[in-house]
């Protein structure tokens, strides 16, 4: 049966490994006498981690980061972060003699003259893409299951910083080879910065060490890419994981699981085997992709030159939403006012992106203010059981998707034989209306699913078995859930909106009104979990679980569902 592990501060006692432990025992003893490592093993060796497939998304991010560090370190031994002009003399014939920067030259050298170099370059790039993708999915998992709630709000913010850092790492790394595509990316960044009011021109001048493109940017991005950003990233990553340990991992509702326990496998041995093995699987998938699929073929693009560009230029996909925002802005938004140039065609998208990211960062605080819920939560919400949050998330995803799609507007137009104007206008409408539609649909779907869950809890599920009763009546047999399955469907909470009541001074402030209104909006449509009495009533009504015959009268069911839906 289950072993219960009680953690209390025990008196520290020096570890005394078994005598005759051989060389392992001797080594352990040597180490412990100098590090007291046994306390760590005692504390964490049997720490419990709950299982769920979605918890692996964060692991994928962690492991791909390890792969990035390993492959990136190899690349630094060959890469030259210099924009000194040189003539290419490597193995790739079509570029022989072409003038290019030392950065591009060394990137080509890695690809064509170092055995396995191309493989490592592609491992690095694929791992980076997987890193950002898995962070994004991990964030969505945390969002939609409410794992960001107290006490994990700060860890959500730390994770958000990691997400931003990952994108920054991606962009700086993408720019290093100094090829035509990445140079165009930098050109766009330069134009973006120049469009900022007051500070734009000088910021660009300082960043590029003079006029664009200059000869400094690759070296500077390299310092950011391999020193500053990774150092911050590792620090925040460590903090992120420390908090996972401090908080203990969340778990989904399930039999035996409560807000005060964690049920799962201990680190040693099961979790270590599964998670450790999973690292190798993630690495294996990356290696396989790098073996088969070319990524970022800089030799096809050639060195950076401000004049040529190919049709269909796009950033790496994770920057797409920012590029798309630039494309979606309606025309004509640039003015001269007070003798200065106001580039609202750049300022507005930048502000929109900052607001979107800011909203993601502070969402936990917004929700806890609206709901007034200051309790700790360790049992995850099923997305359907928090319809408003899930709908907000769906709206956010839809908005992001619109920006993202806009970054490929030209490719969509050429592939599907559409006009570029038509594509942009459709995506503009999608960006504005889509979130509202997604919100509405998602909320209704969630509530529908909750009603379905409730019906299953109270009346069982349709078994597909049609039985003819002695009286000639045909019924479909409803099978009842067992206690364990039922518990998964009823272990959630339903909130009543905050009532607007005068405060201690007898006043109702506008802030209180706002909060009450938002609370109403958040909780107005809700389905309460089935209670014991309802269960008994449903089952005592000729639906004995063991027999499992008879379907409830339709009217009765609707009464019950309706009666528990507060409007």
């Amino acid at each position, binding site marked *: 049966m*289950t*072993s219960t592990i009680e953690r209390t501060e025990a008196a520290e006692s020096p570890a005394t490994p078994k005598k005759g432990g051989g060389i392992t025992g001797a080594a352990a003893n040597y180490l412990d006498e100098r590090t007291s490592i046994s306390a760590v093993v005692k504390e964490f060796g049997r720490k*419990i981690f709950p299982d769920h497939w979605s918890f692996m998304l964060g692991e994928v991010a962690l492991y791909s980061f390890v792969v990035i560090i390993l492959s990136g370190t190899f690349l630094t031994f060959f890469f030259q972060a210099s924009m000194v002009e040189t003539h290419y003399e490597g*193995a790739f014939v079509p570029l022989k003699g072409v003038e290019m920067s030392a950065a591009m030259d060394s990137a080509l050298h890695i690809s*064509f*003259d170092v*055995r396995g170099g191309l493989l490592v370059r592609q491992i690095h790039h694929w791992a980076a893409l997987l890193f950002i993708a898995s962070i994004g999915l991990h964030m969505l998992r945390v969002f939609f299951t409410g794992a960001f709630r107290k006490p994990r709000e700060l860890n959500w913010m730390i994770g958000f910083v990691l997400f931003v850092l990952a994108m920054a790492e991606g962009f700086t790394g993408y720019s290093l080879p100094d090829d035509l595509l990445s140079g*165009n990316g930098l*050109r*766009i960044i330069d*134009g973006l910065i120049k469009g900022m009011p007051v*500070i734009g*021109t*000088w910021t*660009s001048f300082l*960043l590029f060490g003079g*006029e*664009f493109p200059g000869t400094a940017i690759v070296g500077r991005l390299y310092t950011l890419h391999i020193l500053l950003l990774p150092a911050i990233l590792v620090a925040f990553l460590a903090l992120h994981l420390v908090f996972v340990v401090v908080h203990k991992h969340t778990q989904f509702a399930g039999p*035996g*699981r*409560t*807000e*005060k*326990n*964690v049920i799962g*496998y*201990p680190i040693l*041995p*099961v979790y270590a*085997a599964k998670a*450790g093995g*999973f690292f190798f699987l993630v*690495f*294996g998938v990356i290696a396989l992709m*790098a073996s088969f699929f070319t990524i970022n073929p800089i030799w096809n693009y050639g060195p950076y030159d*401000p*004049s*040529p*560009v190919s*049709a269909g*230029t796009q950033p790496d996909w994770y920057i797409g939403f920012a590029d798309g925002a630039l*494309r979606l802005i309606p025309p004509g938004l*640039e003015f001269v006012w007070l*003798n200065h140039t106001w580039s609202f*065609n*750049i300022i507005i998208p930048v502000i929109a992106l900052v607001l979107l990211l800011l909203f993601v960062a502070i969402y936990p605080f917004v929700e806890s203010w609206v709901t*007034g819920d*200051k*309790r700790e*939560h*360790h049992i995850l919400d099923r997305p359907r059981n928090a319809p408003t949050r899930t709908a907000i998330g769906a709206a956010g995803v839809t908005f992001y998707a619109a920006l993202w799609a806009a970054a490929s507007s030209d490719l969509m137009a050429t592939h599907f034989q559409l006009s*570029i104007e038509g594509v942009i206008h459709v995506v503009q409408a999608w960006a504005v209306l889509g979130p509202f539609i997604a919100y509405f649909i998602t909320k209704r779907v969630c509530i529908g699913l909750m009603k379905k869950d409730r019906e299953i809890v109270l009346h069982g599920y349709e078994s597909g078995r049609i039985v003819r009763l002695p009286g000639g009546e045909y019924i479909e047999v409803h099978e009842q859930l067992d*206690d364990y399955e039922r518990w998964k469907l009823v272990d*959630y*909470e339903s*909130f009543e909106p*905050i009532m607007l*009541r005068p405060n201690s001074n007898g006043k109702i402030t506008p802030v209180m009104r706002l909060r009450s209104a938002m609370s109403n909006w958040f909780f107005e449509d809700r389905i309460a979990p089935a*209670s014991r*009495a309802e269960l008994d009533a449903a089952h005592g009504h000729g639906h004995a679980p063991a027999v499992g015959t008879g379907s409830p009268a339709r009217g009765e069911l609707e009464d019950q569902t309706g009666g528990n839906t507060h409007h």
Partner: protein
Amino acid sequence: MAHDEVSGIDSAASDSSAVETSHRTSAGTAVIGSDVENPGEPPHRARVTDLDPAKAKHADRTVYTLFYLSIAGSIFALAAYMAFPIEDGDPVALRLNTLFIGLGSALALFGIGLAAVHWGKALMVDKEGIDVRHPVRGTDETRARAVEIFDQADKESGFGRRTLIRNSLIGAIIAFPLPGLVLFRGLGPQDQDPVELLSHTMWKKGSRLTLDPSGIPVRASDITIGSVFHIIPEGLNEREDLLEQKAKAAVLLMRLDPADLNISPEREGWSYDGIVAYSKICTHVGCPVALYEQQTHHLLCPCHQSTFDVVNEAKVIFGPAKRPLPQLPIEVDSEGYLVAQSDFHEPVGPSFWERS
């Protein structure tokens, strides 16, 4: 709920987060949970490997076979490193080198990963354990002691009492990074004014229009109606700051039927017999506006799809850009070559704060 006292060993079955039907949280929100009882952990179900020694034996064999396969993969990758040299520059050799080192490594990694996971899932004891959670906040005693320590430190140092010391400390802490920040001014050159640089290009009166990238000058007679040329100023290729100058001076040269061009009065004489030259640098964020639609006389920026109408002095007809592409006034010199009349009359490229 979560703030309740943790009562030592927690029996999973008896405790439930949803025992109460209604619970008031701090903000006066009523929370309704189900009063259905948590049934406790379901009975443990034995796996086939627990019940059938043959299956366990089979799983055992699978695990070590996978580990051996992993070793084989590593050896294969090593062999591939030696067997597929790339030094002769043959692209096929490079492909094989990448593919086989990669495949060997992938096999090595998958072998370990699959074996470890299978070992964990099929053979290791699969009974779940329970950890008890405690509220994240420190206990009252711990918190009281922390407050006490801070009070004591305050008393012993006089941090709160000696306000002059405290405030001067805060001031000094704020001031000391400033010199460090100022050092970053050095990121840009001291002797250049960005606004001045952004306002001018290499073009000047008499500069010949030459082909990009060869630098061969072009005659007006070389330009047929409907054609488009990528143009750089003469002497650009000899410049030390080639890319910086090119990023401003790149020009597109097109010849249209003069009757098609709508020329405003102040630009009379900027073109030559239907030949017009416009900056190639987009007025949005600076990508090269490299795509010319000959039929419609539209220039399209591939980055953000700003579209400029050459017939109407490169005015924006679609996309995020606001300003038309600046026009380079051109004429023909005595030898019939196209030359610039002057620099552009306005800064080229993306907008900036001090531009107007």
